[in-house]
């Protein structure tokens, strides 16, 4: 037959059209559709992994120092996104999710930028490893978004570059032996050496806060830690060099 579609065309004429009534009846996207990005800043630990894996560079962050910590803002530019979902995959905290909202239409480009921010409190202490229990598996190094941790299994060494560390805490959550922690450094203060002190009392005199008390008679040296401002004048003025700065207890 020369025109194979005549029958079909005519039967279509009397059947219901297969058109979806789209704007009138909203359509649910199919499962696993990757649409508009939703970002939960509360879950985010600011590891920056998402930013790193984003191939078109659609994710940008802003860090602002505010009272009580850092205000961290994440921008997801949907006009730049390829909706590959890699950021979602890499986000351990499940802070990023590609929803099934496909209606990403805007007159203003700003409407197509998903943003979220949270204030992250300052972490006291630096990353430290209890090398005694550490098995040097290297998972911490592998998961570190900034590459701040170096683990060498052969020499059994674990080092961290504190400059690079953004204190996201990812390594801590990944550590199988739980040997990593943010360790607050011991409080600093003036340490009295004892041996060799002649109890001259220069230190007491020099102390601007009058925190040091020296009794030559009883050969006693004491310091009021609450008053000490760790200015170090006592240390520098000690003729016998028995005072030093260091961690106390």
């Amino acid at each position, binding site marked *: 037959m020369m025109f194979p579609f005549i029958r079909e065309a005519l039967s279509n004429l009397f059947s219901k059209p297969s058109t979806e009534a789209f704007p009138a009846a909203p359509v649910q996207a199919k499962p696993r559709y990757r649409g508009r990005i939703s970002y939960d800043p509360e879950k985010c630990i600011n590891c920056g992994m998402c930013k790193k894996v984003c*191939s078109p560079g659609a994710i940008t962050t802003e860090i602002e120092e505010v009272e009580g910590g850092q205000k961290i803002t994440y921008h997801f530019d949907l*006009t730049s996104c390829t909706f590959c979902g890699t950021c979602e995959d890499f986000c351990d905290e499940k802070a990023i999710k590609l929803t099934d909202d496909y209606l990403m*239409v805007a007159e203003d480009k700003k409407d197509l930028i998903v943003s979220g921010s949270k204030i992250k409190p300052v972490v006291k202490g630096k990353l430290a490893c209890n090398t005694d229990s550490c098995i040097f598996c290297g998972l911490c190094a592998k998961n570190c978004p900034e590459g701040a941790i170096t683990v060498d299994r052969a020499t059994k060494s674990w080092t961290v570059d504190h400059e690079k560390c953004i204190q996201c805490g990812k390594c801590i959550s990944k550590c199988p032996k739980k040997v990593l922690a943010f360790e607050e450094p011991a409080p600093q203060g003036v340490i009295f050496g004892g041996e060799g002190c002649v109890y001259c009392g220069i230190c007491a005199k020099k102390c601007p806060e009058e925190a040091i008390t020296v009794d030559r008679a009883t050969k006693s040296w004491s310091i009021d830690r609450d008053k000490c401002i760790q200015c170090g004048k006592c240390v520098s003025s000690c003729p016998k060099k028995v005072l030093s700065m260091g961690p106390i207890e």
Partner: protein
Amino acid sequence: MLKNAIAKSMSRSPWIYHVNTGSCNGCDIELVAVLTPRYDAERFGFKLSGTPRHADIVVISGPVTTQSKDRLVRTLAQVPEPKVVVTLGSCPQSGNVFKGSYSVEAPVEKFVHVDVAIAGCTPKPEAVIAGLYKAAEILQKKREAMTK
């Protein structure tokens, strides 16, 4: 009365001209899908036109390669007012994964004013319809502004 009728018709009969500025064809296929029986944009009067002179809505897809930039600008200049420019997908707005290539001139906003951006890579046909629908409304507004 005629003025109102014309303005109203603007949003009822927008003709589309599609410019591909180096797109991967994903968006182009979705734009064609919009005209298929399932989505049928023609029920709103949308029609693909063959020449910019007939167009009301110019749909741009692709990351605006260096080669296509001049052609795009020239073609857009030939569209009679009122016209609406729609970017289809991420590429024209940002360059998407091609961003930073020596031969990519995105974003397109450097050269033309974009009225509606449809995001997605590629956008779902529903999103394209929604975007074009919005563009048609803008078209009517532009027409009303022209005759004021």
